[in-house]
């Protein structure tokens, strides 16, 4: 590797300035569990590495006065797991993030890296989409926010403009009777890439679904928000007809690849199965069954 520079700025302004000035030659470093693998393989050869982990806002977990959570883009999975309340409010988002790799990988891997790496199979992304997370982005032109599902633009591409850095994820306040869940289908039980991943977030009042969002991963060039699946659940008591309609919406949203780990037919079918299983877990949690 030739002439790589490394910067670990303390402020976001410095990071954005350095990142933007280096034009395409710089890479942001969060946990490095994708970046270092790509550098080693020679796929990525950055001239400048901007480590964002010394910036407070990037590594903190905040509960703002208006409710909800704000998670710094570079917070490691292991750190989020240790938060006393996060996993109680957003068990699905936490389980999705904690599925990423081994304990060692968890010590470093961040939700920001998972999203910005742009893999259609990134485990935390469908759960964040289901949660209705909004990301804050800062670039040379200032700050802006985007719904998380608007960030992936294709395999390993994002809608971040040159010089922009993902700063944080904001998860909304939770009404009573809400919970979420994430499931993925993998050929093994650990250390594998999702063949299908599905996040579900629900609010139930008196047994009736009043809000529902479904995020679907690994079955299209980007992670998807399946609005039709959420709509099929809202107003229902999660009866078989509503679940089947939501499952059908998930199957209809699939545009998967065909590979040794799952054929198109298999991935499509599993998307419907995972919808039912994940919604059941989220509903049980929302109704206090955990």
């Amino acid at each position, binding site marked *: 590797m030739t002439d790589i*520079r490394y910067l670990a700025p303390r402020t976001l302004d410095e990071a954005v300035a350095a990142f933007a000035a280096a034009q395409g030659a710089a890479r942001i470093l969060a946990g490095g*569990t994708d970046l*270092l693998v790509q*550098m080693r393989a020679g796929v990525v050869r950055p001239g400048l590495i901007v480590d964002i982990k010394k910036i407070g806002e990037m590594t903190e977990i905040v509960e703002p006065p208006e409710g909800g959570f704000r998670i710094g883009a570079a917070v490691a999975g*292991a750190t989020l797991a240790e938060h006393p309340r996060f996993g109680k409010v957003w068990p699905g988002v936490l389980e999705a993030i904690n599925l990423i790799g*081994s304990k*060692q*990988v968890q010590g*470093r891997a961040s939700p920001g890296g998972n999203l910005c790496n742009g893999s259609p199979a990134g485990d935390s992304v469908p759960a964040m989409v289901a949660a209705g997370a909004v990301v804050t982005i800062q670039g040379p032109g200032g700050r802006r926010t985007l719904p998380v599902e608007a960030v992936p633009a294709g395999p390993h591409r994002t809608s971040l403009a040159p010089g922009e850095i993902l700063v944080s994820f904001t998860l909304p306040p939770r009404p009573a009777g809400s919970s979420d869940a994430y499931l993925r289908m993998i050929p093994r039980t650990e250390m594998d890439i999702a063949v299908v991943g599905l996040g579900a977030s629900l609010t139930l009042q008196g047994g009736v679904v009043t809000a529902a969002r479904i995020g679907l991963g690994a079955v299209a060039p980007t992670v998807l928000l399946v609005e039709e699946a959420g709509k099929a659940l809202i107003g229902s008591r999660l009866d078989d007809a509503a679940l089947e309609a939501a499952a059908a919406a998930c199957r209809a949203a699939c545009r998967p690849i065909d590979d040794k780990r799952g054929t198109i037919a298999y991935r499509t079918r599993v998307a419907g199965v995972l919808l039912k299983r994940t919604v059941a877990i989220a509903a049980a949690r929302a109704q206090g069954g955990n």
Partner: protein
Amino acid sequence: MAKTHISTSINGEPVEFLADPGSSLLDALRNTLGLTGTKEGCGTGDCGACSVTVDGRLVCSCLVLAVEAEGAEIATIEGMAQGEALHPLQRKFLEMAALQCGICTPGVLISARALLEKNPNPTETEVRFGLAGNLCRCTGYDKIVRAVMEAAAEMRETV
């Protein structure tokens, strides 16, 4: 090419070294500092042979840049025994034949210690999940899991 001067702490000792900004902590430990107890299996985060802790956090040193060691506290296998006195995990691994070729062993020991620090009384399933990031191509894992459970039991008695 410009190297960066790094001041860090390894196994409680202050250490200074020069690092190539693109090189890994694993390379710095093994090649610059001669701490070859930490092993390289894959270099891509899959095998866990390179496990160390950075500021108390278990990580793959192949996926950490050497320059990130600046100001950090690193613990490697070389710091596990206190002089001649082996850590209970090390002793149980020897007594119970939890290693064959040994290349995975330093990484397994470091992650087992991290596991027991968080959970002194793990179930077998918890041990297996806790060590899922450490690959061993010799033992079939069973003896490793048993040795960790035995060491955990002994460590619970002695505190």
